[in-house]
Structures are given as C-alpha cells and as structure tokens.
C-alpha cells in the first residue's frame, strides 16, 4: 500500500499511515475549516487498509488540540478500526495526552466508551 505521510500545519495534523512499517499516527492540531477535504483521502486509505489489515495494528493519537468537526472524523476513523477488530484482528489505540490536559484524556475516554477497541492512555510532559 502507498504510504501517507502528511506534515502538520497550524490547523492540520501530522498524519502517518504506513502499513509496511506498521506506523499509524495522527498528531498535532486539527482544526481545518473543511474536515471532509482534509480527511477524505485518509478515510479512503483506512477503508482500503481495513480490507487487508495487519494482524496487529497500533494506532497512535497524539493530538494537542482538535475542533469538534475533527472529533466527528476521529470517531469515523475509530469506527473503521472497530470493524477490523470485529473481523478478528487486533487493534490497539495509544491515546497520548499532556499531563496538564485532562480534557484530552476525557476525549479519549469518551471515544473508548463508544467504540469496542482497547485504549492505552499515555501521559507525556512536553
């Protein structure tokens, strides 16, 4: 599969989707005005990946901030990985949050209430 490697800007996140090296990461800031435009190709990639996933997928979310429109898209991404779990493969979400940011931890907990995927919470300090 092709590798997606998008460098973040002040309103869009870093995205790495690399099946060969097993790297899956969304980090930085996500507040684009048009989330569909930014995430369209990413969602397509994940759809294709879900058809033939690795036995174990580890997805790192290390977001500093995301707007509510992005929060909907993040749920869409998680739901696609939930399907992979339903198809018998292992997926683990590594949810990183800054020690000062309880809101980011809570956001992760809310997602894990909605989707049936195991979450690991990882605290970091700068």
């Amino acid at each position: 599969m092709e590798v997606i490697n998008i460098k973040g800007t002040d309103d869009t996140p870093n995205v790495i989707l690399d099946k060969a090296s097993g790297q899956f990461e969304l980090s930085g800031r996500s507040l684009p005005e048009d989330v569909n435009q930014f995430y369209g190709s990413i969602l397509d990639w994940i759809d294709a990946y879900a058809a033939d996933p690795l036995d174990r997928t580890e997805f790192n979310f290390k977001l500093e901030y995301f707007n509510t429109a992005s929060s909907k898209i993040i749920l869409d991404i998680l739901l696609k990985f939930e399907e992979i779990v339903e198809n018998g493969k292992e997926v683990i979400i590594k949810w990183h949050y800054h020690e000062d940011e309880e809101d980011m931890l809570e956001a992760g907990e809310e997602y894990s209430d909605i989707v049936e995927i195991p979450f690991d919470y990882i605290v970091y300090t700068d």
Partner: protein
Amino acid sequence: MEKEKQGFLDFAYQLYKTMKTNEISLVYEGEVTQEITKTFTSLTEKSLSKNAESNTVQKKVFNVMVECLQNISKHADSLTDEDEERRGIVMVSKGDDSYNIITGNIIKNERVQSLKDSLEHINSLDKAGLSTLFKQQIKESTISDKGGAGLGLIDIAKKTGSKLIYQFKELNDQVSFFILTSTIKRN
C-alpha cells in the same frame, strides 16, 4: 471639520480606556474566516503564554475561541439575503478570576427558537449529562455541507464547566442579534 476630528480622537481614547479598564485584549467586527480564526487564536495564545497562564487555561481559551469563531464562520446569517459574508463581533477580556470570550452575530428569527432550545438544554445538564449528550450527538451527527458536526456549543459547555450566557436582540421582523459569552475560570 475640526470638531469632527476631535470627536474621533476622543472616541479612540475612550475606547482605549474602556479596553484597558476591562482588560479587553481583542475586539473585532467583520468577516470571520478560517484565516481570521487562526490569527486570533494564535494572538491570544501568545498573549496568554506571556501572562504565564497555565497550560490548562490556555488550551481551554484556545479551544473555546476556535469553536465560537467557527460557529460564526459556518452559521452566521446576514442582514440581507444578498449578503453572503459571515460576519460577527469577537471580544476577549480578562477578569480577576476568568477569561470571557464574547461573540455576536446576526441570526434569522426563524432559527432563534431552536438555538434557544439547544442552549437551554445544554445549560440544564451537569458534566456527566454533557458527556452523555456529546457521545450521543457525535454518533448521530453527520458533517454538514458547512463542515460542522453540531457539537460546538456542547463542547464549549463541557470544556468551560460554566453555563453558556446568551442573549437574542430582535433587530427587525427578519433577523436578531445573538450574543454568546463563554467563561473560562482561571483556576
């Protein structure tokens, strides 16, 4: 002519004094675009970090500003149907124990009641209730043509832990002016 000039100078000074007294760090009236949103949030971020405000408060202020501004850029109506610009006012002020983010925009009268209902409903909920509503809404919502998910106000209430303060002022039989104040406690 001289008198008029003097009047403007006085007005500028009065405005400056009012802003200083109320520690208003930002006032804007005009079109609200993604560029404006990025500029204002980064300005406010810089000024907060200069004031050595805690990370938690900085993030909350940033967060609430983005949602308020994107609400205007997605939902504001205009005085006339020919006018497509999404305009609004934005004000950020610092009090002794909180930051206030005040935004205002035109809204069609026909949309006032349903917005009022949403605001009332959000204000009636506690932290757990807001979280439940958010989870329900995020599952059911779809991204609109305007790119919103209908989650902005719930998110603001969740992150601030304060009630949303709002007012509608009817301007004529077509439109009203909607003012929203979000308060972020400083500790």
